[in-house]
């Protein structure tokens, strides 16, 4: 067993047995980052010194008998999470000079569990994108084919995990930004229920949709780390006060009797054949494992993309008004007056996709258009949530593809925003309804990975992870590594 293909559970056991130290583990992965990151561009910042110090501290706490399960396990954080004393760019020129003065709750919780972070991963600017091409730091490359995108917005985390530069990485998901890149690089990724994981210190994009989660090769890996991230946080007013299950212990929940709904609206038009075939094969695996499979319908779900592209830009235009060139972030040279300072700092600090979304949001919220666009979108959002609620009276989990096709070439969709937005057609619904959802690898279309999406009722992460785990005990897609990274 080589260290970089070991699971989180195997690493935890190896550390506990003294087979290697946390410092040795950190060095192993830092070496891989040094070797492979120049080609992938998965990291914005590598925090080698801080990581080795944290790893040494992890080893010391183990020697003192104070180690937890995850003490010394290395990961990476998406550069949207504030990390005290370390640049937190959000993929934007606006925050290229921003040194976070505090840790996000996700970061501090993981640190308290002894997890060691090795760096900050590249991402679409302010998490706005589906290909990682809107980053100020340039596109990330897909380890399966460097001419293709890794998906987005958590593209750096996805590529880093797929290339086994880190065993796992955090992500955020506003419209599919964990699941779609997980699918496009052949790893697992879970977006928990809205409110399950604290968003304190996670730079806001669209506050009624944003949720943090984790990306790793397997559902079991995700279970280990989600447990360390989740839970109530008084610093996030949308955080939900509910006990966190033992996700690892509950992985063993038997699949028999599980009722699975196959989402009719997402298995037809617009779905590429190579992806549809793999998803149908995965559904057959579930049938063999003893699940009951039925068709379900969510007739309003095809409206989720237009709904999202009103709601998300509206919230983004409000959230991003804080970037004013005064208190933190980029400021233009020689402002003529205060208005010039605002307008040029924002125009020079934000990239074109972010500006487009700010303007879309400004427009749909402006006087005379609010009812027609924003209020109507919020009503359609209710209808979409109702569709899911009805479906979950009949089934425990919904299965469908994560993305309409595999990874597309870099540059293929940058000229037409609507075409790019449609790549998220299968993932956005879960965000609008606040539902947990995950993507797991279910095979290949040619040489490119395909993802299967699981969507569940609120707070059903445990059931979802155990269902994904049951599939991964029968298949080996999640342990496939691109040849150059094996």
């Amino acid at each position, binding site marked *: 067993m080589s260290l970089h293909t070991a699971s989180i559970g195997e690493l935890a056991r190896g550390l506990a047995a003294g087979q290697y130290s946390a410092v040795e583990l950190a060095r192993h992965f830092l070496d891989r980052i040094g070797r492979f990151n120049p080609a992938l561009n998965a990291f914005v910042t590598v925090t080698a010194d801080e990581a080795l110090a944290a790893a040494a501290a992890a080893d010391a706490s183990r020697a003192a008998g104070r180690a937890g399960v995850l003490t010394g396990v290395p990961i990476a954080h998406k550069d949207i999470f504030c990390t005290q004393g370390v640049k937190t760019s959000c993929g934007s020129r606006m925050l290229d000079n921003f040194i976070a003065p505090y840790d996000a709750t996700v970061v501090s919780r993981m640190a308290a569990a002894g997890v060691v972070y090795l760096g900050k991963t590249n991402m679409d600017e302010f998490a706005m994108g589906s290909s990682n091409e809107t980053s100020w730091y340039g596109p990330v490359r897909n380890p399966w084919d460097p001419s293709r995108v890794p998906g987005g917005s958590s593209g750096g985390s996805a590529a880093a995990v797929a290339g086994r530069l880190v065993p796992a990485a955090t992500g955020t998901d506003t419209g599919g930004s964990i699941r779609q890149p997980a699918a496009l690089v052949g790893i697992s990724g879970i977006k928990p229920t809205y409110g399950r994981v604290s968003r304190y210190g996670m730079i806001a994009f669209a506050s009624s949709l944003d949720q943090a989660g984790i990306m790793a090769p397997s559902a079991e890996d995700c279970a280990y780390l989600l447990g360390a991230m989740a839970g109530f946080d008084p610093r996030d*007013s949308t955080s939900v006060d509910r006990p966190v299950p033992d996700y690892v212990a509950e992985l063993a929940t038997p699949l028999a009797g599980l009722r699975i709904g196959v989402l009719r609206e997402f298995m037809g038009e617009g779905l590429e054949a190579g992806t549809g075939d793999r998803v149908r094969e995965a559904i057959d695996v579930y049938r063999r494992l003893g699940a009951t499979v039925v068709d379900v319908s969510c007739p309003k779900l095809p409206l989720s993309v*237009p709904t999202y592209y009103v709601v998300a830009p509206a919230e983004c235009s409000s959230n991003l008004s804080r970037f004013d060139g005064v208190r933190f972030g980029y400021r233009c040279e020689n402002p003529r007056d205060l208005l010039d300072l605002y307008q040029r700092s924002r125009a020079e600090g*934000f990239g074109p996709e972010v500006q*487009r979304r700010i303007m879309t949001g400004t427009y749909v919220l402006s006087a005379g258009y609010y009812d027609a666009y924003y209020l109507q979108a919020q009503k359609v959002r209710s209808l979409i949530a109702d569709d899911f609620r009805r479906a979950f009276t009949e089934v425990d989990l919904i299965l469908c593809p994560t993305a309409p096709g595999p990874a597309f070439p870099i540059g293929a969709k940058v000229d037409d*925003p609507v075409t790019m937005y449609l790549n998220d057609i299968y993932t956005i619904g879960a*965000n609008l309804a606040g539902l947990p959802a995950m993507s797991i690898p279910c095979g290949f279309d040619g040489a490119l990975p395909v993802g299967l999406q699981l969507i569940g009722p609120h707070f059903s992460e445990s059931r979802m992870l155990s269902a994904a785990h049951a599939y991964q005990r029968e298949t080996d897609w999640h342990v496939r590594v691109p040849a150059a990274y094996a």
Partner: protein
Amino acid sequence: MSLTRQDVEGIARLARLKVSDADLEVYAGSLSKILAFVEQLSTVETAAVEPMAHPLAGEAQRLRPDAVSESNHRELYQRNAPQVEAGLYVVPKVIE
């Protein structure tokens, strides 16, 4: 819904974004495309539907007591500011 250059100029002013003349045309094109795409929402019958602002039904956002819970971090926070002087943020002169 098709936006003109003048429309985009107005939106950009509200959004405090300086858009160059050349880019006005580009944004007018892409914003019009987006608005045409979301236009399909208007065909949905929603007269009896409540708008949804929070994804968890019945979960109201908590309020906390209005009590001091943080210490003063001004110096730390101002390290990220483009320009400060004597603990104050400096901006171009506003009042002549």
